């Protein structure tokens, strides 16, 4: 009996070195079959052709604070185009002495986004905080009180314009989209038809046609003497466009609410508006939070289309810099810089939406 409890006489045999540690990992993940081995070699060869020259161009040979003449002489990347023109690229024609104001507004926005990212902060007070923050951002940008000079919105440009178009676009489009989604689910045929026509019409055409409409046709719609600022018109086009997409997302949420919820609300004697406000929408809107974030992401990316109607968003300010003869020929660097800005912002949002999706599904 005691023999069972004693340790075996022979020493423990370790697994072969080829199946543990780095070598084991490489064998299991990179060379586990002849097909995968070939794939690995092909990808490595491709990376070897692309990555070292890119690193050499972008970092080793690059210039960061030189003049344009030195850039033209060198073979590496010329990041100086960014550092030399950063204020114009980020803030456009906003008066240089006042550029701390959009900067402060952007910082406030980033803080609000970071706070919102944390779900333990989700209370009714956060909504009020957002409303207050948006108001503060607007007044900071616009000015016209306690010593701040007024800066008309025609002078706004660069990153703040991109953010304004995206954020106000989504805030205004959201309620409109919810109304459209409810209208599409309505039992009243005329309202249902109007909503379906609107949603399908807008979703069937490119955003650029709406932007053209806002810049060319919209002035014709107004009575003589009335004019509307071009930025506001583009903003309206983005709102009308985004609302149709939000309506479709919200419709998905409405359809996911079980029928029993409607019946229970009916049996309690709630009116249509009470049913929607107290029972259906809170559930439906919670379901569609992740897809709504992806609409926010595409709305943010789509704001870049205002370039085509010559609004100075961050893409247009960059192009204006590139058309300066001094800095001509460095498009790659400038566009890579913009791509990084867009990527970081969108990745922040999509990462957040993925985490939310995981949280909400439990």
């Amino acid at each position, binding site marked *: 009996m005691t023999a069972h409890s004693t340790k075996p006489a022979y020493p423990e045999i370790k697994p072969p070195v080829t199946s543990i540690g780095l070598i084991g990992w490489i064998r299991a993940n990179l060379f586990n079959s002849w097909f995968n081995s070939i794939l690995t070699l092909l990808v490595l060869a491709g990376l070897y052709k692309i990555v070292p020259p890119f690193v050499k161009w972008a970092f080793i040979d690059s210039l960061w604070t030189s003049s344009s003449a030195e850039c033209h002489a060198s073979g590496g990347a010329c990041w100086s185009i960014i550092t030399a023109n950063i204020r114009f690229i980020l803030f456009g024609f906003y008066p240089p002495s006042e550029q701390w104001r959009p900067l402060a507004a952007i910082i406030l926005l980033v803080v609000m986004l970071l706070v919102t990212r944390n779900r333990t902060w989700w209370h009714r007070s956060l909504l009020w905080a957002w409303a207050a923050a948006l108001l503060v951002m607007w007044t900071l940008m616009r000015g016209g009180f306690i010593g701040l000079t007024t800066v008309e919105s025609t002078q706004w440009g660069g990153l703040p314009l991109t953010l304004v178009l995206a954020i106000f676009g989504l805030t205004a489009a959201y309620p409109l989209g919810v109304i459209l989604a409810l209208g599409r689910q309505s*039992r009243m045929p005329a309202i249902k038809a109007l909503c379906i026509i609107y949603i399908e019409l807008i979703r069937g055409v490119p955003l650029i046609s709406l932007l053209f409409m806002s810049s*060319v046709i919209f002035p014709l719609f107004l009575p003589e003497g009335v004019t509307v600022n071009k930025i506001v018109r583009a903003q309206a086009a983005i709102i009308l466009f985004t609302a149709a997409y939000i309506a479709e997302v919200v419709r998905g949420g409405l359809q996911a609410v079980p029928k029993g919820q409607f019946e229970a609300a009916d049996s309690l004697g709630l009116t249509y508006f009470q049913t929607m406000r107290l029972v259906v929408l809170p559930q439906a809107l919670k379901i569609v939070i992740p897809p709504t974030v992806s609409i926010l992401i595409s709305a943010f990316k789509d704001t870049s289309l205002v370039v085509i109607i010559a609004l100075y968003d961050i893409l247009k300010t960059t192009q204006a810099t590139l058309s300066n003869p001094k800095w001509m020929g460095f498009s790659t660097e400038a566009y890579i810089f913009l791509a990084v800005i867009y*990527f970081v912002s969108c990745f922040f949002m999509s990462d957040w939406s993925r985490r939310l999706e995981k949280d909400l599904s439990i």
Partner: protein
Amino acid sequence: MQQQVPSISQTSEAKTSFWHDPDRLAVFYQALALAVVILVGYYLFTNTLTNLERQNIATGFGFFGKEAAFEIGESLISYSAADTYARALLAGVLNTLKVAVIGIILTVVLGTIVGIARLSSNWLVSRTAAIYTEVLQDIPVLLQLFFWYAIFYEILPSPRQAVNPFSGVFLSNRGMVMGVPESHPAHIGMLVAFAAGCVAIWILRRWARKRQEETGRIFPVFRTSVALLLALPVLAWVTGGAPTAMDVPELRGFNFVGGINFSPEFAALLLGLVLYTAAFVAEIVRAGIQSVSHGQTEAAMSLGLRPGKILQLVILPQALRVIVPPLTSQMLNLTKNSSLAVAIGYPDFVSVANTTINQTGQAIEGIAMIMAVYLFFSLTTSAFMNWYNKKVKLVER
């Protein structure tokens, strides 16, 4: 005072008040909504009419027959500045279709490869695919178009020092030129043979399915189809005299002559649209394949099906059901995004219509046409896809 009591009970018995009768409220709300839409529409319409009158802008599509007097960089039909606006717009529509059709095919192919690569057991491959989808999804497509266009006109050399990545393909700031087989009557024969092969396969499939249902005997349809699709064109090629002459681009003077030439605008637009949309398609394909539970594969294996059959009979039919609806909307997105061509100067429909608007001043007609054309594309594609969806839909018993 006493007289009022019965009257109240009478009315409450007969009908509820107007504000609590859902049927009559529904009529009221609908009438209100329609009235608001009509009134707003009428207001905008009258404003527009007065504005047009004041600015002396003619209305209607009379400009269609007038001389366009502008050049179009590339066109599938013969077009010159002396042609009419109608022909210019038609050339624009064809250019849009050209980039959309080629783009959709390439996107589906690339997206499927990347989507499958993301699920690969090879760490390096799946990571590369993940980085690709993550990065390209998060950069606006317009910025990507500008980037590729800048690569073409800024980075690539002139035709004299053209980059030659593969034999017969030259990249320069004048675009991409590629060698193609010289035109020969046998090529038409090959096309006919290919079409005949498709028809034969369709008939063969119907026959094989019917036979399998009746007798249970399986016919190797897939291998026969591949053989037919390859063999018939090859046969036509051989009987046509087996032409091997290639039309290889050659540098003459300042540019290439021969081969087929893709302008930098077209190449940048196609590259940008395909790389951007393929990232989304890859996500869709991955999600579709992952939606088929592993138990299905195991069940099929325990039935003794071979891996190819498992993919064909078990996984793909279920995955496609998940993949097709979002894939359709990505195809439509690509078509709609092709309108961004106007920003880099590819003469697509929006670009031609925009020039027309600028020359004739008839903005309303121009934008109405743009919207109508894209709506037509959208509606026909979704009609086709709805039909396909119904075909692959789960038949519940």
